[in-house]
């Protein structure tokens, strides 16, 4: 626990250093594409001393000065599968983005979708020594949360305080300065496989970059795709990615649940490839140009040449109707959405006051999904697009870039995590010098 705490704190310091330098890279390691954005923090909001989120939700503090996308290699289900290939793809994206930006970037904030995220709701309570809640008390109550045994091979990716309660008053956003006797908090903790995150860190190291932060891509796309009232009232963001589908549930502007389904757009492509006996590249092209999930009578007459390179005329001149293509794609898309429904039900999504579901991600662009999804996920479904950020090229404004854009917002306005608070004195070893120093600092 302390080890992880130190590592996350080191990453946070790295991020502060990157902010100081003014340039930071965003890396979205996806299954189908790797996107790299380079942000420059020099906007008018950067040096604003007052608090609050500022104009344009704080986005005017940064500007995208470089953007590059490359086809992902060596990534499956949002996890690194072939390190060397992934490293090459990362280098491609980073180099192209650096070239566009014209600056060298040393710090990178990364997100990934796989690694089997698992959510835990933690609760903790302490008695307050003196009447008023201070920073130290918040740190103590966070430390007092009883952490479940999440397994040796797991790492904590996010641990965010979601709710504070002071005596009988709950739903406090910021308890500091308030008077009470007993402070309780709810914390949302997200754990992922440590192997996967270790691979990610190693891959980024090999590209001569420093990791300044890691986020779950479900969380990042939730930040960028859900509008403010959806985040406030309660909504789920479903990020239909290439190899996995991320789910994140937000309420009161905090993520309270995240999960992922290990199914995505690549599986649809694979189904097409297998069903029509065509190469994956052709299947991807056909899916992109002609794909859909709602068949109409017109689609029976629209024939698609699927071609081939075998030299056999009959084989190479094959055509399929669009209805057949839809017949292959639809069951898989339905399966993904049903799996999402199962996860949402398991999370208790139906108990939320508002049950808005926002579909985003590259696979959400398939035509007809807006008609299919309400049948499975309920009536409150909309297609989501990421927020517009300054300087983002037109090509990178689509739904496929929602997690990259969300990561930009995450970089500009990170939410408080557990490791942002000082370690309470009780957590230090009994005879350490730092404990003594800390005691002095707290008492004088």
């Amino acid at each position, binding site marked *: 626990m302390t080890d992880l705490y130190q590592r996350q704190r080191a990453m946070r310091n790295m991020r502060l250093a990157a902010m100081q330098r003014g340039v930071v890279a965003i890396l979205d390691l996806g299954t189908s594409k790797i996107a790299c954005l380079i942000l420059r923090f020099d906007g008018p909001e950067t040096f604003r001393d007052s608090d609050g989120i500022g104009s344009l939700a704080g986005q005017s503090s940064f500007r995208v000065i470089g953007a590059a996308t490359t086809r992902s290699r060596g990534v499956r289900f949002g996890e690194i599968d*072939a390190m*060397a290939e992934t490293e*090459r793809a990362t*280098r*491609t994206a980073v*180099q192209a983005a*650096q*070239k566009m930006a014209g600056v*060298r970037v040393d710090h990178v904030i990364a997100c990934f979708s796989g690694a089997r995220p698992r959510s835990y709701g933690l609760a903790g309570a302490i008695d307050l020594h003196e009447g008023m809640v201070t920073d130290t008390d918040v740190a103590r109550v966070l430390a007092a949360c009883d952490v479940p045994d999440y397994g040796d091979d797991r790492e904590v990716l996010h641990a965010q305080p979601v709710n504070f309660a002071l005596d009988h008053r709950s739903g406090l956003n910021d308890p500091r300065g308030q008077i009470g006797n007993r402070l309780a908090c709810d914390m949302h903790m997200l754990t992922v496989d440590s192997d996967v995150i270790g691979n990610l860190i190693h891959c980024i190291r090999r*590209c001569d970059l420093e990791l300044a932060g890691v986020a779950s891509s479900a969380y990042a796309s939730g930040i960028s795709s859900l509008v403010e009232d959806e985040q406030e009232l309660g909504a789920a963001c479903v990020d239909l990615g290439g190899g996995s589908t991320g789910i994140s549930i937000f309420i009161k502007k905090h993520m309270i649940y995240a999960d992922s389904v290990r199914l995505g757009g690549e599986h649809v492509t694979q189904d097409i490839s297998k069903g029509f006996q065509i190469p994956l590249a052709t299947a991807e092209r056909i899916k992109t140009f002609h794909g859909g999930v709602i068949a109409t009578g017109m689609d029976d007459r629209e024939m698609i040449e699927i071609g081939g390179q075998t030299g056999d005329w009959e084989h190479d001149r094959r055509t399929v109707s669009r209805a057949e293509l839809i017949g292959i794609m639809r069951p898989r898309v339905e399966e993904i959405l049903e799996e999402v429904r199962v996860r949402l039900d398991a999370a208790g999504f139906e108990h939320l006051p508002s049950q808005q579901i926002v579909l985003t991600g590259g696979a959400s662009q398939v035509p007809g999904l807006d008609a299919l999804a309400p049948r499975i996920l309920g009536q409150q479904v909309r297609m989501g697009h990421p927020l517009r950020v300054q300087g983002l090229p037109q090509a990178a404004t689509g739904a496929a870039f929602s997690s990259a854009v969300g990561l930009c917002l995450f970089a500009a306005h990170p939410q408080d995590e557990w490791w942002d608070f000082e370690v309470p004195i009780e957590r230090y070893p009994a005879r350490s010098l730092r404990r003594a120093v800390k005691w002095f600092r707290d008492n004088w």
Partner: protein
Amino acid sequence: MRSLSAQAPRRDPAPSRVAYRFQRLWLTPVFRSLVRTGLPSFALVVGLGAYLTDEATQDTLDAAIADLRASVAERPEFTVNLMAIDGASDGLAEDIREILSLDFPLSSFDLDIDAIHERVSGLDAVASARLQIRSGGILSVEIVERVPAVVWRTADMLELLDAEGRRVAAIDSRTERPDLPLLAGVGADAAVPQALDILAAAAPLADRLRGLVRMGERRWDVVLDRDQRIQLPETAPIIALEKVIALDKAQDLLARDISVIDMRNPVRPTLRLAEPALEELTRIRAIERGGQNR
């Protein structure tokens, strides 16, 4: 997995590690400015330094520069063929030519006009000089000469001074310039304007006037013939002189046997009689006294 033994794929879109690192290095501002400005300027400085410090190159360069200068300076537009001296008497013009000793034709680049002006103005007889290189290759020297106003006799020489007391020339004998009044005495040249005023006031005595003598570098004596002197005061000498002239007109003072008229104290003019007159006066007084006594 990519095969270890197989050839690399024909075209990998990914940059190699070296290319990637080099690009990152190239995007480093310090390195970039070093390579783009530091290295070229360093090479330039070193190269130029090595080239210029070589002895042979320096000689060649100097020769080339001299050639270039000569090719411009020797153009006919810049040649000066003769010197025209205006406003100077022949003797002075001769002197000027002698001290400048320019051998024409020469280039106007080689003429140091300021130095020439200094040397010409340095001549005693020259009040002011204007130099100009006129078109047609003529060095024109316009001179304003000093006009001698008095002759100043010192212990060993005779000099001509102008109205301001500046030396004009030396002369061998007084007879060369009998028209000019004569001054004498140490420091007379410093008070020439006053002397000229006194001489003007002494115009009624002109036929008897021998000259002025500066006494003790502070006042003047007017010397007349028959060894008569009028000692003038330090202040307001002209008024004193006019008094003497008025006395002379009224009582014919100067015609008498008086050697010195002392006006140094203007309120109490004093006369000194010449030796025979004094004896005569003593005798007369003795007679008068004897007559009285008798």
